[in-house]
């Protein structure tokens, strides 16, 4: 793509376990907040992007917001793994001229409504284009939840690399430390020790304990994307230096059971290569990384796939303290999906923007480059 696009506004509702209002209302509230943040109004919006699995009906959303004319809209597949693809779609739209100002949003009631982590046995063939065939192949065998679908690559990874549950736990302790000082986090003021992690119950043994699991959250996040030229007139723009999406043959989201080597996240490696090349940066240029921690093992696989450490070395990278505020790669400074909330990856991008604007609850010293990885999609943001 020629030129670049920018995120010019961010907005979110509170993150809770019971929002007490519809996803449509949550989305509308987050969008109004994002537009106000950008100094724009609904009259400026002519494009919309969300997830294929988002429950908000676009017609109802537009009816509530009073957007005069939607000239372009799209939805991204692959669930949370596809989340950062929204910025690729939005950037493509504003740079092609299909739209001028695009709102991206995700609203969910994944705790009070249809719980993400529930055990479900009513199989669905394609589960809303989320990129998983797990339902039909896993349901008769009691493999009923995202944690159980993702436990297989995790166990194999532990087997091949010698990584232990305690190694995973060291990353969680850091995420929970960040969450402890983030007032918006579910685990605000509730840090844990490694013992606490090791004493949390098994969800999927030997890889995933309760404290390795992301939250189930009610809430919404929205952002406003426009061209860098128009962004110059807004108060706090952040450039989308690169946005990438890679879906590899036989690599499924969550139910990744059929790639030859499940201990390597090849799709994330391809996303990383694309991001670094497009943004024209080295790994050492990344000041803060937000990496999709649906379950701790998935964080380890991405850390390695993105090239921040070698295969099987994530345990050492984490133990050396690199994820912390003074480490080589501060990660998930909002507490991540494990510590803050689970708005399907969107709150990771929100924190990346906050860091670059100097608005994080765990503000780093003058970061200029943030990387967000959702595995199959990612962005590099820059100011």
């Amino acid at each position, binding site marked *: 793509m020629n030129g670049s696009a920018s995120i010019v506004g961010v907005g979110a509702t509170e993150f809770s376990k019971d929002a007490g209002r519809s996803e449509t209302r949550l989305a509308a509230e987050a969008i109004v907040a994002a537009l106000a943040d950008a100094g724009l109004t609904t009259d400026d919006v002519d494009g919309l992007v969300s997830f294929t699995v988002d429950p908000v009906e676009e017609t109802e959303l537009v009816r509530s917001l009073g957007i005069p004319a939607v000239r372009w809209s799209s939805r991204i597949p692959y669930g949370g793994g596809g989340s950062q693809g929204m910025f690729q779609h939005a950037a493509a739209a504003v740079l092609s001229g299909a739209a001028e100002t695009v709102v991206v949003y995700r609203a969910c009631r994944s705790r009070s409504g249809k719980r993400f982590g529930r055990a479900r046995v009513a*199989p669905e063939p394609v589960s809303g284009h989320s990129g998983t065939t797990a339902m039909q192949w896993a349901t*008769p065998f009691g493999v009923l939840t995202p944690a159980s679908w993702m*436990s*297989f690559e995790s*166990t194999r990874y532990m087997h091949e690399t010698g990584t232990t549950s305690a190694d995973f736990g060291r990353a969680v302790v850091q995420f929970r430390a960040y969450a402890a000082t983030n007032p918006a986090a579910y685990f605000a003021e509730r840090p844990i020790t490694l013992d606490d992690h090791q004493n949390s119950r098994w969800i999927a043994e030997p890889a995933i304990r309760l404290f390795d699991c992301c939250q189930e959250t009610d809430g919404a996040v929205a952002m406003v994307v426009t061209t860098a030229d128009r962004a110059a007139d807004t108060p706090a723009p952040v450039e989308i230096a690169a946005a990438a999406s890679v879906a590899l043959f036989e690599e499924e989201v969550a139910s990744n*059971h059929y790639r030859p080597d499940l201990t390597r996240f090849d799709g994330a490696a391809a996303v990383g290569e694309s991001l670094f090349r497009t943004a024209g940066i080295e790994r050492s240029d990344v000041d803060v990384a937000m990496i999709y921690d649906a379950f701790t093992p998935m964080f380890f696989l991405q850390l390695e796939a993105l090239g921040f450490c070698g295969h099987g070395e994530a345990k050492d990278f984490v133990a050396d303290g690199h994820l912390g505020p003074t480490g080589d790669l501060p990660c998930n400074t909002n507490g991540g999906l494990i510590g803050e909330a689970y708005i399907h990856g969107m709150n990771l991008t929100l924190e990346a923007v906050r860091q670059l604007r100097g608005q994080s609850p765990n503000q780093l010293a003058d970061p200029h480059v943030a990387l967000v990885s959702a595995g199959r999609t990612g962005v590099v943001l820059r100011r």
Partner: protein
Amino acid sequence: MTEPLRPAPLRTEENDGFWSAAAEGRLAVQRCDACGRWQHPPRAMCPACHATALSFVDVAGTGEVYSWSLLHHPQHPSFSYPVVAVLVTLDEGPRILSNLVGVEPAEVRVGLPVQVTFAPTAEGDVPVFAVRELS
């Protein structure tokens, strides 16, 4: 105490041959009639040669554990816990998600040789695996 009954698999046009064979007590995996490629999960076309002539062919039913997991929570009344879940690499090549039955959870490990057996659902048997004693 009777064992809880598993939920029936979801039948689709692409996977019906797999579940129908299992209901007859056979483990059959999709193979391309044209180029002989084994593939699982089954699909509408052979991705190697684009043939649409695909058959479900009986396999030996032997393989080894590629990965495993003991599922403790959340629990559903259709299963006994912990669920011993495995990914098995069949001798013919494809990988298949299933359960290991008749085994102590503490004995499950990568590389364990296994042999197919079958377990009932509300609508026909599905393939599960037992530890194979090497002779």
